[in-house]
């Protein structure tokens, strides 16, 4: 799950996958704007077949949260 999420994020943001970790905060990545966030969310949900409830999705701050929420589903 975590690898899949990292993989999608690194591709969408054109970042080295080794620079992606759970602690990475969305606000700290310049390229990670709200549109990119939505496209990442959408792709993660499709790739994993899981959905993050919108209440959580709207509040995401870090990569780790996304992974954690997907694992909860």
């Amino acid at each position, binding site marked *: 799950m975590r690898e899949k999420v990292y993989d999608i994020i690194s591709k969408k943001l054109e970042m080295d996958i080794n620079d992606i970790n759970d602690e990475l905060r969305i*606000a700290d990545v310049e390229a990670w704007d709200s549109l990119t966030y*939505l496209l990442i969310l959408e792709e993660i949900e499709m790739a994993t077949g899981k959905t993050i409830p*919108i209440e959580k999705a709207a509040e995401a701050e870090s990569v780790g949260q996304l992974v954690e929420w997907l694992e909860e589903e």
Partner: protein
Amino acid sequence: MSKIAVLSNVNMDAIVKNLQRKYEVFSPAGYGNVVEELSNAGSELNAFKPDICFIIIDASAMFDRYDRFEEGAGVITSFFGILESAMGTNTTYYINDLDFRSDVLKTDIIDNIQELYAAEWTSAFFEFSKKHNNVHMLTFSSLVKRIGSCDFYSAKMWYLGRIPFSVLGRNEIQNEIEKCIKLHEGMCVKKVLLLDLDNTLWGGICGEGKVILSDENVGLIYKDLQYVIKRMKRSGVILGIVSKNNEEDALDVLRNNQHMILEESDFAIMKINWENKDKNIREIADELNVGLSSIVFFDDSENERMLVKTMLPEVTVPDFPDKTENLPECMVNIFFEYFDKENYTLEDSKKTELYRQNKERELFKQRSISYEDYLKELKIKIYPVSAKENEERVYQLVHKTNQFNLTTKRYSRDDLHEMLNSDEYIVYTFDIKDKFGDNGITAVVIVSLSDVAEIDTFIMSCRIMGRKIEDSIIAYVENKLKINGFGVVRASYINTEKNKPVEKLYDGLGYKCIECSNGLKRYELKLCDVQKRELYAEISERED
């Protein structure tokens, strides 16, 4: 290459981003600014001078707020009125037909309001496109129909980002836009459709005495396919046959089978023989005097398709459907993809008739209003609200606003919290409403206070850009500072990749540039000589 503009009342950024990989595309900063961009002569859109302008209207976002049909109908009238006065003659416009994302609750007053809006829109469109041959319809509802409303739209994307469409929906829209661009450039117009016979125009193999063509099950599929092809011929497609058969067997079916819809005379050329098909096709191109690139070849045999693709790469060879029942639809798609012309929708008088019957309607009123009148009509109201009570939203705006963000300072939660509780800063926060509804808290101004007041941060959400709201907000802030005894206000613009739209904001507001270096511009304004500005939004201090 064509210059493309995309205007919408919803967030099209994801689609625009993809299109920008292939085309020069302009889309206004912020969304919802369809009429604003069109009517504002000084807008970036008008400076861009697009060859093709796509106007994509999300029906639900535009109409679901109205309870009375007349209100929504007025919006339609004024939309086409503004378009009429603002449109450029060198630009081709594609405007979609309406599709509603979900049903509204039916009331006893009016029970089919969405259908009425859709009909009103379409009839207004056809009236309009009759007068302007540079206006065409982008048939949006058929895109939705193709994959189904549930898969086309995404409620989650809508609520999170004002993107009504799922990734599937966005792909459909993007493909359609690209198809329209190709249509416009005349790139996809093919002239000749070459058809195989056995298992293509009819089922079975005529040489073996078996022809499936009838009014029942599988036979009907082929008959329906022939109806489609017949219509294509009527629209100007040149038909030809390339088939490996004994000529007399094939001609016998063509001439004598009672279920044949296509007749021998419908075909401009026939090559029914045992030669290789690439050779036949080359001869046809010569005999009809058309280029190989204007030929589409349709055959059920994968081998034949491969051969033609390999030997004659200029010839277009569409896939043959896996399921026989999809043949007629497949041919319709081939028509739209390769033979459609930009002007069909215009002359599609039948469609017009159909929509006309839907209801009695007022004659389309021409109403040209100026951008300024439009802004006045919007009745924009700005409500200053407490920043402290909306800390989370302020944080969000500080971190996620790129375009209308003069200095792009991304304060941390802690910093922001401190600023909100400090005497050295004032954080102004605004809730913006207009007659169409509430935009929510969408503007923040942070002013640092020392000897002089300095606008440290000025942010507006892209969804309210382009309505001169900033002018009123700045006037409000200046006024507050003046009351508090400040004589001078300073401001700055720090250039980023994305905030170009506001590069000249302070210049336009009469601020004096006092320093300009390396992407940083600093400004000053003496509050005693603020020039008179025309303001379109009203500030309304709410009593809580």
